[in-house]
C-alpha cells in the first residue's frame, strides 16, 4: 500500500444552511486515480474548491505529504503541486492556446519584475525552455497546429483537452479534474480518458469528478460515492457500483 499524498480529515462546510461538506474525509494515494461521483449538490466541486483554497473549510484539516495545508491561499497551494480544471472551463480565451499553457508553468523567473531587467538572460532562457515543453505537450495532445489560435477558437472538447494540458504543464503532482469529459464527443472522450489513464505512470495522482459512470469505471482505481456532503460508499469501482446504498440513491 503506497502512502497517502493528499489527505482530507473531517471537513465541514455549509452554504446558507445547506451542508455542502459534512465530516468528509478521504485520502489520495501516490499514483492513483480516485473517482468521485454522486448526485448534483453532493459537494464534489465544493471539495475541490476547499482543496485548492478558494473556499475555506469551517472545520477539518487538509494535508499534503504530511504537512498541514489547511487555509493556505490558492496560489500557494497551486505552487505546492495541486493543479485543477474547472467544470465550467477556465481558460484565458483572449490569449493563444500556447500562452495558456505557458501561463500554467510555475515559478517562472520571467514573472519576477527584477529578473526582467537584471537577469534577463535567465528569464529568457527559461521562457525558451518552457515554450519547447509547451509545444511538446500540445503535440502529445494533438492540438499543436492550434498553438497560435485564440483559445476560444477551439472546439469545446479541445478546450477541455487544453485545460488538461495546462495541468500537465504545471508540473503538479496532484491533479483535480472536474468533469473532464462532460458534454464532449465520444472520440474526444476516449482521447482524454486515455491521457488520464496514463497519468499515474508519469507520477501523477488524480481525483476525478465525473457524472459519466462508464468513464469513472474505466479509469478509476478507487471510487467514492458522495451524497449530501458525506461519503456514502468507498471501494473499487465494482464494489461501489454494487453497493445497495449507491443503487438506492440513484433510483431515488
Amino acid at each position, binding site marked *: 500500500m503506497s502512502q497517502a499524498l493528499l489527505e482530507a480529515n473531517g471537513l465541514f462546510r455549509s452554504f446558507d444552511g445547506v451542508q455542502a461538506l459534512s465530516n468528509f474525509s478521504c485520502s489520495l494515494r501516490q499514483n492513483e486515480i480516485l473517482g468521485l461521483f454522486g448526485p448534483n449538490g453532493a459537494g464534489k466541486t465544493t471539495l475541490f474548491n476547499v482543496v485548492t483554497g478558494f473556499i475555506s473549510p469551517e472545520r477539518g484539516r487538509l494535508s499534503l505529504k504530511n504537512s498541514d495545508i489547511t487555509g493556505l491561499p490558492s*496560489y500557494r497551494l497551486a505552487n505546492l503541486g495541486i493543479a485543477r480544471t474547472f467544470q465550467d472551463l477556465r481558460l484565458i480565451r483572449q490569449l493563444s492556446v500556447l500562452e495558456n499553457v505557458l501561463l500554467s508553468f510555475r515559478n517562472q523567473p*520571467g514573472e519576477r519584475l527584477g529578473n526582467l531587467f537584471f537577469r534577463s538572460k535567465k528569464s529568457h532562457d527559461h521562457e525558451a525552455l518552457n515554450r519547447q515543453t509547451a509545444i511538446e505537450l500540445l503535440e502529445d495532445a494533438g492540438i499543436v497546429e492550434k498553438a497560435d489560435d485564440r483559445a476560444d477558437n477551439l472546439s469545446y472538447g479541445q478546450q477541455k483537452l487544453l485545460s488538461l494540458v495546462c495541468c500537465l504543464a504545471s508540473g503538479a503532482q496532484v491533479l483535480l479534474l472536474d468533469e473532464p469529459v462532460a458534454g464532449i464527443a465520444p472520440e474526444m472522450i476516449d482521447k482524454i480518458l486515455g491521457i488520464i489513464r496514463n497519468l499515474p505512470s508519469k507520477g501523477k495522482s488524480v481525483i476525478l469528478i465525473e457524472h459519466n459512470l462508464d468513464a469513472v469505471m474505466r479509469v478509476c482505481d478507487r471510487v467514492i460515492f458522495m451524497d449530501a456532503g458525506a461519503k456514502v460508499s468507498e471501494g473499487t469501482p465494482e464494489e461501489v457500483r454494487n453497493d445497495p446504498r449507491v443503487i438506492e440513491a440513484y433510483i431515488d
Partner: protein
Amino acid sequence: MDYLLHILILIGIYVILSVSLNLIAGYAGLLSIAHAAFYGVGAYVAALMALNLHSTFLVNIICAVIVSGLLGALVGIPSLRIRDDYFVIATFAFQVITFSILNNWVSFTGGPMGLPGIPQPTIFGLQVSSHLGFLIFIALFCALTLWVTRRIVRSPFGRVLKAIREDEVFAQTAGKNVAAYKIIVFVVGAGMAAVAGVMYAYYISFIDPTSFTVMESIFIISIVIIGGTGSLWGPVAGAVVLVLLPELLRFLGLPSSVAANLRQIIYGGLLVAFMMWRPRGFLGEYAFHRKEARE
C-alpha cells in the same frame, strides 16, 4: 518654432502618462482615475525639493518616483478586495483627496497660488533651458518609459497581467500571486506618472493644483481608451491625436472661449463614440466590460 516644440513636449509628457496608465488599466485591467494624482505628486515632490532643499534634478526625480510609487501601492491595496466600478470609485476618492491636499495645505504646497520659480534642471553638468533642450530631455525619458513598458508587457510578467485582467481565478489556479502583481503594477505605473510630473514641473517652472484635477485623470483615460487599451503603441497614438486636436481648433480661428468648450465637447464625444463603436480604440486588444457584453 517654439510653439511646435512646445506641442511636442506636451505630447511627450502625455505619452509617459498614458503608457503608464495603460500598464495599470489596459494590461492589468484596473481602471484607475487616480493617475493625475500620481502625476501631481511627482511634480510637487520635485518642485518642493528643488525650491526648498536645492537638491539636484537626479535626486529629485528619484525621490518623486519613490514617493509616488509608495502611494501607488496604497491605491493598489483596495483593488485586492473590491472590483470594477467600486474600485474606480476608490481611485476617484484618492484623486480628490490628493487634489484637496495640494489645494488646501497652503503653508506647504502654496495652495491655489502654486509653486513658482522652479529652477531649470541640470543633468550631468548640462543645464536644460531651451525648448529644444527640453524636448530632447523629455524624449529620452519617453523612450525609457516605452522601453521599460515593452520589457514588461512582452515578458511572462506581462502575460500574467493579462491573465489577471481576463480571469483572476485562472491566474490563482496557475499559482500566480494576484495581489502582489496588482500592487507591483500600481507602484510601477505611479512611478512612471511621477516622471511625467517632474518633467512638467521643470518645463513649465510653475505648478498649481489645477493641472492635477480629476479632469486631467479623465483626459489621460481618454487617451488610453481612444488610442487603444492593452497595446504598447495605442496610447502613444492616442496622446498624439488628443494633444494635437485642440491645437488644430486654434487654426479654425474660433474665439478662445468657444474653442475651450468645444475641446471638452470633442473629447466627450470621441470617448462616447469609441466606447460605442470601437471600444478597443485605434490599436487596442482589450475592451473594458467586453466580458459582460458577451455573457
